[in-house]
């Protein structure tokens, strides 16, 4: 079959197309974005009429996928790790409803926080929901495991999580395809109450989920995804989870590790294989990218019995991404390092693009706020978060998608008036609207600035669900029309923009300012492509 060079993300997407999905749902988020983008761009997917949608947020994406699964078709939903927090409600409950058509939830974690607020490990969520987790170690496995994952999901009638990390998501390697499978026909659950989680039904379904746990562990032992390499030196056994297996192998030139190794790519934990290692080896080293999930499961609270080494005992740093050198040190092998970085080398943090509309919005806001004490601007997740850095230093918070408006309201409730919220257009429709409604109901004196650049910029310019709709949404939610102010963030309008900011900041009620100018990056791409007009989808 055809061999392709694919990012881990793209391998998952191609796997999903070939495994017969009928739809994929997502909200963009690094490092998961390229999965859905790949399906979007795929001619094959279009020919097969695969629905590829950007959702308003991860929760609505998860729910759309659940609906497609209900209708009997295979579907995938993709998000970054913190996106799973947004989708957590439907995600947790989908384990209790179970799936009908195969359902894979891809969670892309970001250890070392290359592009995120934290490094939470989605395997906790999979374990929490008590569903199987697949953790491929390379691009080919990612592709193959999508096929297996759908079979697993349909066999156990459960959603399956696929957990990857940034390094696999954004690394390319060769992937060999297998023949593609037809999509499922539409077919509703045989029990039409399966998805009705009334307490009486949920209790029964939850018992069924509990009953599945032992068969799921047996599946982990038997599927062939967890491989036990029975090597001779029993001083130590090594459990290498997902991509950590590669860093282990990198340390042995001939790819032969002297110690027994369990390559772990499927959960729940394969009990038999772990018990074998514990009974035969003096100690166990756990290599996992992300948090010490497996290590904690093996260790328990009192840490009695066999010695377990990993992130908790300091054999491996407690935070940050793994690499071959960290693993070498944990194995007791020698470390390697080139010359030090010369002292003259300085940091080069990311910054707003030249010509970015956010820059003009922030300079106007900063000037309008000169009369007040500092520390009043609550912001959100997006390119505009870079406004926290010098020279703008315009914002004072960035917590989670949509937090800006409710945090500004809470601070105003506490007496910090004026308080300002700054949020992007796509973030506003993702999770900002409900917070705005809270503030409208009490007419809280906050000024909400919705930076409308007509795109989801930070992740590479995906369409924004807010496009062309923001003033109508604000009006519909109940903001007084005269306090919805649209302005054009350009240097030449600076003085009048400052005046508008000042007026609305002084107003003792809820007001919304919408600086509107297209992202310089998407504009550039459109100009190149012959200036296609944007249309509301």
């Amino acid at each position, binding site marked *: 079959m055809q061999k392709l060079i694919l990012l881990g993300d793209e391998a998952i997407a191609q796997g999903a197309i070939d495994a017969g999905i009928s739809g994929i749902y997502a909200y963009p988020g690094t490092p998961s974005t390229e999965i859905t983008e790949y399906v979007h761009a795929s001619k094959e997917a279009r020919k097969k009429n695969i629905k590829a949608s950007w959702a308003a947020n991860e929760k609505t994406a998860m729910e759309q996928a659940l609906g497609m699964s209900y209708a009997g078709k295979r579907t995938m939903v993709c998000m970054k790790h913190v996106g799973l927090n947004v989708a957590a409600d439907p995600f947790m409950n989908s384990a209790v409803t179970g799936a009908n058509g195969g359902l894979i939830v891809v969670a892309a974690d970001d250890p070392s926080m290359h*592009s995120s607020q934290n490094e939470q490990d989605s395997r906790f969520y999979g374990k929490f929901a008590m569903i199987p987790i697949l953790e491929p170690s390379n691009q080919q496995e990612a592709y193959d495991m999508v096929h297996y994952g759908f079979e697993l999901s349909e066999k156990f009638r459960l959603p399956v999580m696929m957990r990857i990390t940034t390094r696999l998501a954004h690394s390319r390697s060769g992937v060999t395809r297998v023949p593609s499978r037809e999509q499922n026909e539409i077919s509703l659950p045989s029990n039409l109450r399966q998805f009705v989680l009334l307490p009486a039904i949920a209790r029964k379904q939850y018992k069924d989920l509990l009953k599945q746990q032992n068969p799921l562990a047996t599946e982990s032992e038997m599927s062939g995804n967890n491989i036990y390499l029975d090597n001779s030196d029993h001083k130590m056994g090594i459990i290498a989870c997902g991509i950590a297996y590669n860093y282990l192998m990198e340390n042995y030139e001939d790819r032969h590790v002297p110690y027994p190794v369990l390559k772990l790519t499927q959960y729940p934990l394969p009990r038999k294989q772990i018990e074998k290692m514990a009974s035969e080896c003096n100690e166990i080293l756990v290599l996992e990218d992300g948090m010490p999930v497996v290590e904690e499961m093996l260790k328990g609270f009192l840490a009695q019995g066999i010695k377990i080494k990993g992130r908790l005992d300091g054999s491996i740093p407690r935070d940050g991404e793994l690499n071959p050198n960290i693993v070498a040190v944990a194995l007791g092998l020698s470390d390697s*390092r080139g010359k030090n970085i010369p002292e003259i080398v300085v940091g080069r943090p990311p910054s707003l693009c030249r010509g970015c509309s956010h820059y003009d919005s922030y300079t106007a806001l900063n000037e309008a706020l000169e009369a007040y004490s500092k520390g009043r601007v609550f912001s959100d997740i997006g390119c505009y978060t*870079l406004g926290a850095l010098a020279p703008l230093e315009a914002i004072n918070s960035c917590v989670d998608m949509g937090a800006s408006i409710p945090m500004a309201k809470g601070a105003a409730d506490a007496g910090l008036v004026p308080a300002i919220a700054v949020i992007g257009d796509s973030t506003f429709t993702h999770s900002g609207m409900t917070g705005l409604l809270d503030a409208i109901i009490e007419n809280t004196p906050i000024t909400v600035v919705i930076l409308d650049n007509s795109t989801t910029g*930070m992740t590479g310019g995906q369409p924004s669900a807010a496009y062309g709709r923001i003033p109508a949404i604000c009006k519909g939610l109940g903001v007084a029309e005269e306090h919805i102010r649209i302005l054009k963030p350009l240097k030449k309008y600076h003085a009048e923009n400052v005046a508008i900011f000042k007026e609305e900041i002084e107003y003792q009620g809820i007001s919304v300012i919408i600086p509107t100018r297209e992202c310089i990056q998407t504009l550039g791409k459109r100009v190149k492509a012959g200036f296609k007009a944007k249309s509301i989808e």
Partner: protein
Amino acid sequence: MKNDIILAGVGGQGILSIATIIGSAAVKADLFVKQAEVHGMSQRGGDVQSHLRLSNREIASDLIPFGKADMIIAVEPMESLRYLPMLKPGGWLISNINPFINIPNYPPIETVIAEIEKFDCHIALDADKIATELGSPRSANMVILGAASPFIDIPYSELQDAIRAVFGRKGEEVVNMNLAALEKGREFTELNK
């Protein structure tokens, strides 16, 4: 055969194009390839790097271990120095000397070039100047690739073919510009290594 390459630059300077061309040439040459990229926030004018690994046998890690890279290929001089801990003793440092200054505290360029010249195995060239003289300032990254090409164990003709394949959609003129840029970079190294 093994080439472990660190590609370095600033978001938007085209290091991923270099990676794509080497990567597709390597696949044509039946080599195993792994290429770790940086996407997301850092692409907004921050420092970016890519780990590119080529080998005639299967590659384990997506990341090159510290102190094991065979070469650093940089389209920006200060960025070439940021990854020195990755470079093996005696590894090659191939860098543009034309700085990309988007920070207020960029060090004096002479001090940066002096650091590069401390290496016995270095190639330092003004790729932007060479590309501009060819009438194609955007091809500076291909000049750098050309300068690195004598150290990459892939036949030169495969790199040329990869440029034709990757830029083919953009028309013959773009392909020829990039081929000329590649050639100029290669000439520089042949004369100066």
